[in-house]
């Protein structure tokens, strides 16, 4: 669509589930333009040696029992990764783990510390496997794991390393969000687990104490017996354990208080603030429990968790079953992060070229809100004007709280420098050499973003030691109290006061929560809304880090902020750094180096440099789209191939396949009927077309095909009626622009025909049984392009895209016509309406080069735009206007 529709048509992927033996179908003869000077260099050749056909996301863990192991892939189908060795690749990606995770007691600290590690992001390649991966490491907490941490990693695996490199920022952003989500859920689950463990321990403690007391009473002499000592030790152990666990709980709840270094670790502010509060609430609660117990008549909730006695000897490391990822994470959060990953996978499907085209398309469309309704699918309305990234909050804290993040700018269209070929050859050279090199040995190194991982718990430690002395003492007091009393009050864990402390919404949700245990509320409660839709589809659009302005100005293919920060550095590095790091060793410098070459463009380059899609390594030689076409596209509202057109009506989501079919149907119609052009003209100029036929299937099919030509069909094709069999009235004619009508021979049929003839002045009638069309004659040239009886386009999808580009151009012209002041209003007072009308006609004829009949299309589109602009139909209480013309109709036959 943008410039080169057909190329794109063949570069985008199919839906999963569609059997497609060949990843890239052969290009039909009519499109076999010499893409590359070298005959055998295929832009998609890289995929050939990869053992998988499509990109996927792999989640692996480094199990302390069995080592690296793959956990799941997204999409979760065995055929996705084909013969690709997931185990091997898991080893590869886990082996670049940065984490020297600190375990145990740091010097000067009495208790085991949780290591708060930031995620790390690495790009690594395995040229032997033909796989390249963006790898995102993260750690989750597990009470039973060594050092309480479980290392995981999520990897986006693709055969195209450029795709990874060039999308690094966005991948990083999206994976960070998923990771943050997982980690938040994990903290919640971890805290819950800790709470239970604490309850167990306290219970055990009380039991032990009671036993000891009983023993002492029974036989005070045995105080120093071996058995008693053992008991006392056990008791001391349990007490120590209680303190340790309390401390852990405090650490985990204080998580949000500490400063984050990870720029992508964007968290919802509300989450952060309320979790921060929760930490205090928790400690206060614990402190206040003693007094809480005193008012026995207070409303107390029945705990759902019964504490269990803990045996002194816990299971050995290798006996126990480690928790799965799902168990490690709160369910809502887990679902949400999986959804995020799935969305990521979806949004990165397809070739780089396709991705960028689609993105460019989307950003352009966002600019053209005024005319989008004509032929475009709905661009998600939730998008703000500036593309903002909302920190993902699985609990869906209200939207108003999101912060504006500056998205990484993705800039399209590398443009050639004067010496464009030189760095290019250099790069291909280095690639070649690197490929040779990479076969034998693989290397990878963490990007510098991982270097800030440790030393993060410093701040938290300080805050702890300072702030919590009081409460600790109270805790102890309370514990003593509870020990002295006969048994721990099972009700004491959730007290009214606790509820009072939490906000009202928390109350609701905790009430709904079946687990009334002691976990900090913020960690436990999944918000109500969140449970329904943790992730909206729109979110994906939100997440897209596209700066439309950049796209419009057609700058280089850059991540601007990155580039701006380190521009000189990268320049410097590019000179120093030996280029063999390019493929496998993706240092950030290498990234910049890469960008320097791929983005054959800079901000200073004029916008007229043209839209160049980075199709392949030979991009500069072949894929320069002409400037005119590029500029045309920026003007027009281009459309994606995944436009949601549902001629089948009423909210049904039409898949890509159906749309292609519609394109095919339209192509068949154009080829089959010599008078197709008249029918298309009717539709485009706003004259209702009635498709009359006996066979419902045929009529519906044709209506679906012709629906592509209905301007402003409505969000769910409200202006199209695929099949009706009753006589219609005037309001039907103007509600629907395209009607499938059943030809019946019963008496009702005659009244139907009567209504047809009565309203014949408003409609065109396409009789598919007799193959006739009755409509006003059309003599224009505009549509010959899309309604060529002898068109050489053979494929429906090609035709569809071709059609879209033509319609785009039409919409752009209509836009121009609508918003050009002097074409509608007099410039001076003397001018009468005739002068204005003459000027308008002159504009249409001479500037746009249109015939009289073509003018009608433009005027109709312009009318639609005007009405839409003045009052979108949804807001209007007035009935819609129906415009028509009094002209004679001709009867066309084959």
């Amino acid at each position, binding site marked *: 669509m943008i410039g080169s529709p057909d190329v794109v048509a063949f570069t985008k992927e199919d839906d999963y589930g569609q059997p497609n033996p060949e990843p890239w179908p052969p290009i039909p003869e009519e499109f076999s333009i010499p893409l590359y000077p070298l005959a055998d260099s295929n832009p998609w050749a890289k995929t050939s040696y990869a053992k998988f056909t499509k990109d996927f996301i792999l989640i692996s863990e480094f199990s302390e029992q069995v080592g690296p192991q793959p956990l799941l892939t997204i999409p979760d189908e065995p055929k996705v990764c084909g013969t690709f060795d997931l185990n091997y690749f898991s080893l590869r990606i886990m082996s670049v783990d940065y984490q020297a995770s600190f375990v145990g007691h740091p010097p000067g600290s009495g208790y085991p510390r949780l290591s708060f590690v930031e995620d790390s992001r690495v790009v690594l390649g395995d040229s032997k496997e033909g796989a390249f991966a963006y790898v995102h490491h993260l750690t989750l907490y597990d009470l039973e794991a060594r050092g309480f941490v479980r290392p995981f990693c999520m990897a986006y695996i693709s055969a195209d390393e450029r795709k990874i490199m060039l999308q690094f920022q966005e991948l990083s952003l999206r994976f960070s969000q998923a990771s943050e989500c997982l980690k938040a859920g994990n903290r919640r689950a971890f805290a819950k687990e800790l709470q239970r463990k604490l309850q167990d321990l306290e219970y055990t403690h009380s039991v032990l104490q009671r036993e000891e007391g009983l023993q002492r009473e029974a036989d005070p002499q045995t105080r120093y017996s071996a058995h008693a000592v053992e008991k006392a030790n056990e008791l001391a152990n349990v007490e120590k354990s209680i303190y340790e666990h309390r401390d852990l709980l405090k650490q985990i709840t204080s998580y949000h208080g500490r400063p984050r270094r990870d720029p992508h670790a964007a968290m919802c502010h509300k989450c952060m603030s309320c979790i921060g509060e929760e930490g205090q609430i928790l400690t206060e609660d614990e402190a206040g429990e003693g007094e809480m117990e005193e008012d026995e008549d207070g409303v107390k909730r029945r705990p759902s968790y019964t504490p269990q006695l803990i045996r002194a000897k816990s299971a050995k490391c290798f006996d126990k079953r480690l928790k799965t990822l799902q168990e490690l994470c709160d369910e809502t959060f887990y679902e949400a992060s999986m959804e995020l990953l799935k969305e990521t996978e979806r949004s990165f499907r397809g070739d780089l070229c396709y991705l960028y085209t689609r993105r460019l398309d989307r950003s352009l469309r966002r600019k053209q809100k005024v005319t989008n309704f004509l032929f475009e699918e709905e661009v998600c309305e939730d998008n703000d004007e500036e593309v903002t990234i909302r920190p993902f909050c699985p609990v869906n804290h209200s939207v108003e709280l999101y912060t504006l993040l500056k998205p990484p700018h993705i800039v399209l269209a590398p443009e050639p420098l004067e010496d464009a070929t030189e760095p290019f050859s250099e790069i291909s050279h280095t690639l070649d050499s690197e490929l040779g090199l990479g076969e034998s040995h693989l290397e990878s190194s963490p990007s510098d973003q991982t270097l800030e991982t440790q030393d993060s718990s410093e701040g938290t430690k300080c805050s702890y030691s300072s702030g919590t002395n009081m409460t600790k003492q109270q805790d102890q007091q309370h514990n003593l109290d509870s020990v002295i009393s006969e048994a721990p009050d099972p009700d004491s864990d959730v007290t009214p006061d606790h509820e009072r402390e939490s906000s009202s919404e928390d109350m609701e949700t905790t009430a709904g929560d079946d687990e009334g245990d002691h976990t900090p509320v913020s960690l436990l409660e999944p918000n109500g809304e969140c449970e329904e839709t943790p992730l909206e589809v729109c979110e994906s659009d939100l997440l897209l880090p596209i700066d439309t302005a950049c796209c419009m100005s057609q700058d280089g293919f850059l991540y601007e902020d990155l580039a701006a920060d380190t521009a000189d550095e990268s320049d410097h590095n590019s000179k120093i750094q030996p280029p063999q790091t390019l493929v496998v060793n993706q240092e950030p410098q290498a990234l910049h180096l890469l960008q320097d070459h791929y983005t054959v463009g800079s901000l200073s380059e004029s916008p007229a440099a043209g839209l160049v899609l980075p199709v392949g390594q030979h991009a500069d030689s072949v894929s320069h789209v002409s400037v005119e076409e590029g500029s045309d596209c920026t003007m027009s509202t281009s459309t994606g191939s995944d436009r949601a057109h549902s001629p089948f009506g009423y909210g049904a989501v039409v898949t890509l396949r159906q749309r292609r079919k519609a394109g095919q149907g339209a192509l068949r119609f154009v080829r089959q009927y010599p008078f197709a052009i008249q029918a298309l003209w009717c539709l485009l100029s706003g004259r209702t077309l009635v498709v009359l036929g006996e066979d419902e299937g045929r009529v519906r099919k044709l209506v679906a095909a012709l629906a592509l030509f209905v301007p402003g069909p409505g969000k769910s094709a409200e202006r199209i009626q695929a099949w009706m069999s009753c006589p219609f009235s*005037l309001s039907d004619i103007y509600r629907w622009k395209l009607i499938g009508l059943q030809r019946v021979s019963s008496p009702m049929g005659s009244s139907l*025909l009567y209504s*047809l003839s009565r309203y014949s*002045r408003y409609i065109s009638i396409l*009789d598919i049984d007799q193959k006739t069309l009755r409509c006003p004659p059309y003599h224009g040239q505009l549509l010959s392009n899309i309604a060529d009886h002898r068109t050489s386009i053979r494929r429906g999808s090609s035709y569809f895209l071709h059609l879209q580009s033509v319609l785009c151009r039409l919409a752009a012209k209509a836009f121009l016509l609508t918003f050009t002041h002097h074409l509608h209003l007099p410039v001076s007072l003397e001018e009468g309406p005739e002068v204005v009308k003459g000027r308008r006609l002159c504009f249409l004829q001479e500037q746009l080069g249109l015939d009289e009949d073509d003018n009608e299309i433009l*005027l109709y589109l312009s009318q639609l735009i005007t009405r839409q602009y003045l009052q979108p139909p949804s807001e209007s*209480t007035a009935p819609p*206007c129906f415009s028509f013309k*009094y002209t*004679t109709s001709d009867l066309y036959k084959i």
Partner: protein
Amino acid sequence: MLRWILGSREAQSALEKSSVLCIGEEQPQNCFTELQVLKGHFDIVRFLVQIDDFRCASAGDDGLVLVWNTETGEKLLELRGHSQQITAITTFKCRNALTTQTMLITASSDRSLSLWDPDTGNRVQTIADLHSSVKCLLVLERLCLWLSGGEELCVWNQDFQLQCHQPNPSDTGIIALIELPKNCVAAAMDKEIVIYRLTVPADSVLCLTEMQRLSDHRDQIRALINVNDNMFASGSHVGELILWDAIDWNILAYEHILWEESQSASEIRMGSSKPSEMSIQHLCSNGKLILAAVGSGLYVYSVLTKTVLAYRKVAHDSNVLHTIELISCSEDGSVRMWEIQDLPLAAEPASAGFFGMLTFGRSSKHSGPPSKKVLDVSNLKMLELIGDLIGHSGAVQMFVSFKENGLVTCSTDHLLILWKNGERQSHLRSLKLFQKLEENGGPVFS
């Protein structure tokens, strides 16, 4: 033209078509190229009144009165209150100290009268339990009075107080009321027109005195209108058109519209002698010309020459129900616009030219050579169809014209259609568009 889809019905439809005047789809003079369908009524819509330049009210058998904005097509108000069909509606200008406010008076079969404020939708006044339902209303603005006619004639003041009333001598009731000079009103009942005079005697009680009974019509009077200050006209069921002097109530002219033909041509056209075909359904006038809807035909009568100026015997497929200024609507669901055109020059062979101009196929034969006895060929002009509006699926009961702002039609299909000049509307929308652009501070392309 549609025979190709009508298939086997071709022959039959051809016959049907033959009797119909058809203009075809190309109508360059027809400026109504945009329409809006106004929905809101649940039954036949019979009445339309214009409130001001941009509002009109519609009323019908569902007892509802709806107020519409004719510029946007929005329904402004729903006036609910009558339990049965509305039988008459008129506007009433209430004069206060400062302003003049247009109100609506409605009469219904539930034997009540109501005064409505079309700005707020309030039912300001209401009178229930009348002896009979009111069939027509007449407002005497000069006297700040209004009259209701039915089986009795009542005079009311601005505050809905009954001033005096006159039991009806006739059993059919008053079907039309018009105002005449010198505080007189004319009421049409059955075959008579009764002239009443409103007087205020010494005891200052308003009094209605019968002045004269004009019983020159041979059949029921169907229409009664004012032509100008000096004349009024009435039409009867058998096609009599009588022009009266408004001051001394003498007959100025008597035209029996289908008289000659029904005598001479009855043996040829059987149906034409039926009285319903020559019934004068409706009259309207611009002071110089009277347009009479006679059966399904239209006659233009010149007051000056006292002759039929132009006519079209079969103007519609069915009875014409309402006319204004050379626009007619009919039971056949269409509205037709006419133009009076001069005949070709007298030097040309009159008959040939006459037929040559009528290019309506077989339908032209009905227009036939005019009877020389009644109609002077040299004076005769042509009533030419210049456009028709097709939209309603039932009889078009009435329409009001808002001049260049459009035309509102109401119909038995429960709908109103607002017909507009598409070009003008498009221009207005463009104006609004640039206005909005300016308000928004320049183009919004984001």
